[in-house]
Each structure stands twice: as structure tokens, then as C-alpha cells.
């Protein structure tokens, strides 16, 4: 398989200069997710302002795919409403599980379309989804958290 399909320039750029990295206050939920097969880890915080995703901050250790994915997630989800964010997550998941057969929508996924190639490498799909699954978990905790108004 062609590794260039996997390592798009966009992915390598995000890997070298991740957007939104680091843990920040305030936050309503913090989660820690790991990929048990390879040991990649992410601690991710979500700050909601009403229904808006006001911030996503994270501390991640892992491969270029998982790191770049967290960076793209930050770009895509901050500023969106929770339902909009969940819709983006669904679109991203669909591409990731599409085995390379699902055409990504650039309107929705922006830089995330660079991950379409990852779907051809089944062993790496979990890398790309690590931060997204962490975000989903954190958001569901934040919206059910009584501290959240």
C-alpha cells in the first residue's frame, strides 16, 4: 500500500505543529483514553459555554496519525454547538470506517479529509479515532455534569 496516501502533507503539518495542544482551564470534563494495543494515550478536556464547544484542550502522546487527528479535531470542533460537533464526529467516523470507499465531504471535514487515506490501513484507524472517541466521552460527561448549567 502506498504510504503517501496515509501520510498526507496536511497530516505531517498538523503532527509537527499541533493546534490547540496542552491542557487548559476551565473545563467541565476531563477524560483519559488509551489505545491498549499500542499504548497511545490522550488526556482531553472539554469546556462548554452553554451549548457551544468553547474549548478542547489535550495532552496526547502517540503517532503522527493520532496527534494530527487531535489537532484537526480542535480546529473543527471549537466554536461549534454540541450537536454540530457530534455531526462532524459522525462524518469523520464514517470516513474512517469506510475502508477507503467513502468520499469525504470537505465542507464538513476541512483538513480532516486528509485522513481518508488512513481508512485503507485498518491498523491505523484506531489511531485516527482516539481523540474523537475521547471528545465524545468528555462531551457526554460535560452535558450530564450537574456543575454545567
Amino acid at each position, binding site marked *: 500500500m502506498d504510504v503517501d496516501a496515509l501520510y498526507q502533507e496536511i497530516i505531517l503539518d498538523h503532527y509537527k505543529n499541533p493546534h490547540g495542544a496542552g491542557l487548559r482551564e476551565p473545563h467541565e470534563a476531563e477524560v483519559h483514553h488509551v489505545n491498549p494495543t499500542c*499504548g497511545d494515550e490522550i488526556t482531553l478536556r472539554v469546556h462548554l459555554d452553554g451549548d457551544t464547544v468553547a474549548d478542547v484542550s489535550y495532552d496526547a502522546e502517540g*503517532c503522527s496519525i493520532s496527534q494530527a487527528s487531535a489537532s484537526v479535531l480542535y480546529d473543527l470542533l471549537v466554536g461549534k454547538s454540541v450537536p454540530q460537533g457530534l455531526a462532524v464526529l459522525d462524518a469523520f467516523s464514517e470516513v474512517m470506517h469506510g475502508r477507503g470507499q467513502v468520499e469525504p465531504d470537505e465542507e464538513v471535514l476541512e483538513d480532516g479529509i486528509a485522513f481518508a487515506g488512513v481508512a485503507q490501513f485498518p491498523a491505523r484507524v484506531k489511531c485516527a479515532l482516539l481523540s474523537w472517541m475521547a471528545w465524545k466521552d468528555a462531551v457526554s460527561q460535560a452535558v450530564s455534569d450537574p456543575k454545567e448549567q
Partner: protein
Amino acid sequence: MTRTQGYDVEAIRKDFPVLARSVAGGHPLVYLDSANTSQKPRQVVEAIERHYLEHNANVARAMHQLGAEATAAFEGGRDKIAQFIGAPSRDEVIFTKNASEALNLVARVLGDVGTVGPGDEIVISQMEHHSNIVPWQLLAERTGATLRWFGVTDEGRLDLDDLDTLVNERTKIVSLTWVSNMLGTINPLDVVIARAHQVGALVAVDASQAVPQIPVDVASLGADFVAFTGHKMVGPTGIGVLWGRYDLLASLPPFLGGGEMIETVTMERSTFAAPPHRFEAGTPPIAQAAGLGAAVDYLTALGMENVAAHEQAITAHALERLQEIDGLTIVGPREPVDRGGAISFALDGVHPHDVAQLLDSRGVAVRAGHHCAKPAHRRFGVQSTTRASFYLYTTEAEIDALVEAIRHTQRYFKVS
């Protein structure tokens, strides 16, 4: 060409058809993941095929000719293993499904017989595979015993400085790896076994990486239990081995209950077969035992001294070549002394998964991740590493292909 005294590496590679194949992109396969699982020679695969096509029956209980033939193949596998590892008796060889099950068996039955309790200590090390950590954690939790461990030196050796305090009169079990699957270190078991027995502790050895690559004689080793697996020694998956001292095995209760492990059964109670069958409930891995017997024949024909010498030579070459690469750090001993054929390394600026992916794109198969040894990785401040591991069929040309593929990876990620 790879020169090894004793056997011709190029010639024996023909016994392993998979080594001649190419992978995506037309690259010839360079298989450097043998510590994960070894490739299988035709002789082993044919023994399994022959068993299924010509002799298949269940063992021990079938009173027909095929049953006798299947039993002979299964028990013949046990005889071959017993001889291969220098077991004083064939009845000391228990077949399990893998080394993990063998270690779990020991931990479970020692717990059931009350070997440890509150105030007692179990000693392992920081360089263990998870399968020699988790069963002991579970045993400690179940019994109230305390789990302690040997540290690892900066060089990647077992830290024996506090041997006499770590292994003390409270120690009831010591369980150690012989050859580290991550660091490659070969541990000085004799020193630890002597101390353990001095304080009356039992010793279990995880020999999963040792039996495939060095001559093993359990009688002279002096441990109480030795666990290993078939698939890393050119044998099939689905079969592992627990060797134990007979008098000890005879004093221990069963592990799993079921067919073949009983003496007699009434509705109220059962009595149990003698070892090894006491610990082999249900239909055992029959075809796998036949295959493992063929694996032993294969290794014996090569000569384990020759296999060990080749492993040593190829590892020395790899250590030298890998250390030529700027930005590559070997995690584990860097000298080919008391060292097995697994080399884990970090590459500056490129995550191990990405290294493995790029190497794979050049046909070079390695493992990336924590190699089921997270504590050992943590000891060296790394989350994961890339590991290249070698075996009796590995050539110097393959090591050179690895080195070239690593340089390609560095160029690809613009870190060189």
C-alpha cells in the same frame, strides 16, 4: 552472505516458503518480528497436515487404531519436548495453550494450595512481559500477598544490588524472565535461583524467548517451573509448555476441571489423574503437539548451539549497524553480551508506529508499541519503541535492508 558455523542459512531459508514471498509494492519480505512469532518450516506444517489427513482422532480415549496413532503423535510431542529441554521425566511436561496459560496455571494452583498469604511476598521484575506480571498481581490481590520486583539498570540489565533484601524469608515465589522480549537481556538466573532456594522460595521462569534461541537444560537450571510457547520456536500456535518438578506438580491441585484430568468421578466428588494429565483438562492441542514435535526435530537437527551462535552473530551485526544511525537510540544492552536477538529502539522525531509503517512500506516487518512490556518502557521513559527481532533464518542482508529502510524513514519524516 550470512556465515554461520553449523548450518547454511541460505539453504535452510528454503524450508520457510513465506520468507521467499514479496509484499505490497513488490518488496521482498524482510521478516524481523520473530520474537512476536517465528515463521514455520515446511516440515512442521507438513507434520500437522499429515496428522489431520491421515491420523486424526481424539487421544487417550479412542480405542481404535487412529486413536492409538493420534495418542502416539501427541505423547510423542511430549517426549520430544522433554528431551529437548532436558526434563528428567516426560511426566513433568504439561501442554497448555500458550506461555501465558502456563504462567497463569502456576499462579493459580500455587494460590489454591496456599503457597502465599498476607505478609508473604512474590518477586518479579520490571522487565517482565505482561503475562509474567498480571497473573502475579491477580494472585497477590486474591491472597493478600505483596508483589515486589527487581529494577532494571540504565544498561537494561536486571538490577541485582538488592537481591538479598528483595528476596528474603518472606518471599514465597520468584518469577523471572530468562530473556527479555523487549530489552533482549539474558538474565543471570543462577544467582537469583540460588538466593530464592536459600530462603525457601519457589522459582518460575518465563522462557518464552529463551527456549527458541539458546540451549536449555531445565535439570541444570534448577528452577521449579519453566514456561514457554510453541509458536516462537518454529512450532504452531495454540500450544505452550509448562515444565515443573515432578514432586512439586504431584503436590498441586488441578487447574481446570474436565475430561482427561480425572482418575474417577462420582456425583459428589472426583479424584484426579497424576501429572501431567491432571493439568490438561479437555481435548488437548493434538495436532499442535505433533507439529511441536516436528519443530523440536527441526531445531535439534540444526543444533541449538548453532542456532544460538547464529542469533549472537546476527544480533552483533544488527547492534553495530543500528548504532551507525544518528538519532537512533537502542533501549537495552548495546553490546552483544548476554543478549538475545530482540532490539528495541527509539528514532528521534518519528513515533514507533510511523517507523513501523514506513518500514512495512519497504517490506520490512517489525513490531511497534509497548511489546506487552509497559513497565519496562516506563522505566526508560518511553511510551513505545520499534522492535526488530531475529531468528535462525535471519540474514545480514536483511539487517542491512532494515538499516536502509530506517534511513528512508528519517528522510520521509525529514528528521535527518
